[in-house]
């Protein structure tokens, strides 16, 4: 997949007292992700073209995608498509890139959510709400051994905007 025409719409940077290898593992393994990502299991076949899945606690596949770039423990790019009817057809694929850089004794983790077309603020509000919660919890998990207990409200603004576009969302 050619990703040259994708542009970042959301960028979130967080510094973590950890190592690049541990941050990479936390981002790509179900054992870690279940703790910081509301019970979701990341299942990634870590090679270019490999499958990338986020499985909901009920076992259903919530996000499915493909590994586009894989350079452990420095850079991972995946398609990140929520499995709601007509979502990819109407919004195009969503690309997520994690950049992991050593920064002194810490790690700088940058998440970029990119799209191949302009996406409105209503739709982006979902990612703007979700990423800080997920990555704040990941940082706490790696630094203190305990994730955060964040009870997320459903992203109402995004859901309403998707519904208006005729994209099927959970009722």
């Amino acid at each position: 997949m050619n990703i040259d025409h994708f542009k970042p719409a959301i960028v979130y940077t967080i510094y973590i007292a950890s190592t690049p290898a541990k941050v990479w593992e936390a981002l790509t393994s179900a054992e870690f992700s279940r703790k910081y990502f509301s019970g979701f299991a990341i299942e990634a076949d870590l090679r270019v073209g490999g499958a990338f899945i986020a499985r909901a606690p009920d076992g259903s596949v919530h996000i499915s995608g493909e590994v586009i770039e894989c350079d452990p423990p420095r850079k991972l790019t995946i398609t990140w498509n929520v499995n709601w009817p007509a979502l990819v057809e109407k919004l195009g694929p969503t690309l997520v890139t994690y950049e992991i850089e050593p920064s002194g004794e810490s790690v700088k983790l940058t998440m970029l959510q990119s799209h191949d077309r302009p996406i409105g603020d209503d739709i982006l509000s979902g990612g703007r709400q979700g990423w800080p919660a997920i990555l704040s919890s990941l940082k706490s998990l790696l630094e203190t051994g305990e994730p955060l207990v964040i009870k997320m409200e459903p992203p109402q603004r995004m859901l309403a905007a998707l519904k208006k576009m005729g994209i099927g969302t959970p009722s």
Partner: protein
Amino acid sequence: MPKPEFIYVSYIETTPEKLWEALTSSKFTKRYWWDTSVVSDWKVGSPFALVMDGTTTDVGEVLEVDRPRRLSYTFHHILSDAGRKERPTKVVFNLEPYGKLVKLTLTHEDFEEGSVILDGISKGWPAILSSLKSMLESGTALAIPRPCLGIEELSRS
């Protein structure tokens, strides 16, 4: 064009009162903000300054004080010529209890189009607020190399 502003959200396992103290007291800022002091009596209309290693980098005026919910001040970077030329901007901290956590939302807004300060603070705030979260949760602030703050770049500009 998106509005020239920077917004950063962090969830921190602490109380609003402790977070407020960490944002407004030099005793704490010196630990997580590279030896930076916040100088103000935190009354509306009072002056505000950031002093790093004895050098004043930013000045402003306190706009809102609603302890421990909302704090805002104007922000004028004075270390570089480029910074001094730009109009003062506005920093707002919102602290919301969130279960056993606090949701901290920083909004830094009212930048001129093409602001060089916006570039600098977009690098600096994630480092500062990551270090603040670490200090409150684990007791140890982060030892992030100072260039990550974006200050040196500003001084060269």
